[in-house]
């Protein structure tokens, strides 16, 4: 039978965790509760009263075609940005792990983008990708009208995806590299002696052993791209949700409806829905994707 050490000091334990609980309550449960309440009322922005309207805010949101196009935009953004950031980081990590020339330098070099604030990244992207004045403006000289994310929604989406991925590659890279380096050398050496080339070793040994890290990064990247401050900052600077709502991600729509449009109740209902959506998504990942993960 297993032996367990038990500390019997109930009240002290509660006292010790109280500060943390208070913080969580004040900064998470309280605002969430307030948002939940607002979602069922029509709130006057300057205070002075509200009235209970039941589910009306939710039905209004769910019946709104533009809300659903925001849902689609959010999904496209999240999956595309996550795929791009993970795939690119994996390639970089595999190469750095192979100890090619200069890999020590690259190891710290690739993390930098993550340290730059999202609005700063977006400003840089705006200067580079502006269709008339940016560095890429030359493509429009070859072929007028080829690149214009301020008019073309698909291009605007590509631009925000690229920007988000650029920033998150660094984060993914460092985790993947650490995971690669914790794979026992003996495994790699043994397979090399058996005649497996680098590609074979990658497919049969490295990738399967990376899956726990990969899964962790998948959850983090998806959540971050759905509700994270980076997606908000990038959209705010690069497109403001436009053109014609093509990049109006759910998290940005909440901000612009609530704070710019002063529709606090509608925004509250949207944030509740978004919260549920992210919870469902994370649940799906743990329920079905995690089954394919090998924890050694």
């Amino acid at each position, binding site marked *: 039978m297993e032996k367990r050490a038990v500390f019997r000091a109930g009240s002290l334990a509660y006292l010790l965790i109280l500060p943390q609980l208070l913080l969580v309550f004040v900064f998470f449960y309280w605002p969430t509760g307030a948002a939940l309440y607002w979602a069922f009322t*029509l*709130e*006057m*922005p*300057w*205070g*002075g009263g*509200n*009235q209970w*309207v039941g589910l009306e805010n939710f039905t*209004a949101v769910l019946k709104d075609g*533009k809300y659903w196009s925001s849902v689609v935009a959010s999904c496209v953004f999240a999956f595309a940005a996550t795929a791009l950031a993970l795939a690119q980081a994996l390639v970089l990590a595999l190469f750095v792990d192979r100890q090619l020339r200069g890999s020590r330098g690259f190891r710290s070099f690739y993390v930098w983008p993550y340290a730059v604030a999202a609005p700063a990244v977006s400003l840089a992207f*705006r200067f580079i990708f*502006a*269709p*008339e*004045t*940016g560095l890429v*403006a030359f493509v429009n000289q070859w072929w007028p009208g080829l690149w*214009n*994310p*301020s*008019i*073309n*929604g698909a291009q*605007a989406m590509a631009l925000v995806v690229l920007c988000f991925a650029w920033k998150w590659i660094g984060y993914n890279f460092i985790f993947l590299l650490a995971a690669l380096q914790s794979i026992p050398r003996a495994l790699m050496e043994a397979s090399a002696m058996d005649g497996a080339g680098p590609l074979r070793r990658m497919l049969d040994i490295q990738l399967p052993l990376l899956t726990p890290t990969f899964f962790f990064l998948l959850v983090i990247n998806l959540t971050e791209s759905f509700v994270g401050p980076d997606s908000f900052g990038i959209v705010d600077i*690069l*497109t*403001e949700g*436009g*053109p*014609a*709502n093509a990049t109006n991600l759910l998290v940005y729509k909440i901000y*612009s*409806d609530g*704070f*710019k*449009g*002063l*529709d606090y*109740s*509608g925004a509250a209902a949207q944030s509740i829905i978004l919260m549920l959506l992210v919870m469902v998504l994370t649940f799906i990942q743990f329920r079905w994707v995690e089954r394919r993960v090998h924890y050694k």
Partner: protein
Amino acid sequence: MSFVSKLQMSAAAGALVAAFAVSPAAAERARFEFWYGLTGDLGERVQETCKRFNDSQQEFEAVCVGQGGYPNAVQNAIAAYRAGKQPTIVQVYDGGTLDLMLSGAYVPARKLMADNGYEVKWDDYFSGIANYYATAKGELLSFPYNSSTAMLYWNRDAFAKIGRDKAPATWEEVEEVARELKKAGYECPLGFNFDTWQILEQFSAIHGEPIATKNNGYDGLDAEVVFNKTKFVDHVKFFKRMADEGVFTVRTKEAGMDIVPSFASGACQMIQTSIADHGTIGKTAAADMKWDVAMLPVWNGTERKNSLVGGASLWVLAGKSEPEYKGAAAFLKFIGTPESAEWWSTVTGYIPVTNSGFEAMKAKGFYDKAPYKGRELAIESLTFTPTTPITRGIRLGGFMQIRKEVTDALQGIFAGKVGVEEALNEAAERSNAVLRRFEKTYAGKSLL
């Protein structure tokens, strides 16, 4: 000792004396806060205004805090008000007017001044400006501050190349000029963005077209938008046709260069923008570039009406202490003096808001000299006719959301994704949903 170092010495001594002399008095000064939304160069001018006020008297001290943009100023003031930490004065842009008006979270302008014993000639304000911030009965609730209206900016150099020396007065002429400019090799004869203020709001006012029923919302919260049934629809179709032919060009911040820098750099030859940009363009354009402003063009056969005021006004919020209100009243009195009005108009492009201020500046010859010449046309445009029930202003709930609906529609139209009528009908339908939601939020309250 050289003259310069003597001067430095005496300046230092003077500063020292001043520091000692002022500090005891400063401690007793009644402080009040003023939050503003203007940014950049204009934000610095607001700071200067506060400094001028603080230097002009010993009794009060204005603490002026920039909030980084119009929407932010409103959002932050709301959050602060709900937490009981609001500033005494806040700058609120046109779109945020109605929410505040219905909230009761303010002290009406007249009451504040009367309570503190100041006489203000309320009918001295230009009616086009005052009505925008007044109740339907005409009682001013906030103080018009930075006021502007939209103008047509045109490049004289480019016009000279095609043998013209006058601004187009009608849209028919604009088309003609723009085509000639295009032929003469100009890439962007007229640049525009998706801001609704010029293309929808100002256009509708000067053409006497309503944006919404119930006199643009002044007569009740149950108004409905009608911009999908007015001349505005044909106007957008005209812009679309011109854009398709490459005669008009979209210039947005997202595309790298908004209309104002596009004009100032000489890339675009005509734009419609606020008179407040007059100062900025004067400062940023090449010194030898010749340009001018004119009233916005109208379609042939239109009986021109006054244009609408843009910008923001100053609201005094409820729930502050007596000394703070005294300070606020003194401050508002100060910025209303003719000297302050002239200084403000000089350093920004904003127009004086009162008849007497304007007349005083005109009498001094302010508008005859080069850098300010042309700005008087903004007043002419604003006062072209007495305000009609339609051109008084726009009083719609959730107006920022409505503007966004129209902007979205315009983006869709110019991307070629939807037809003009279809897009505007959808925008109107969605705007009406916004209005109904607003009406329900303020159920039981009625417009003043």
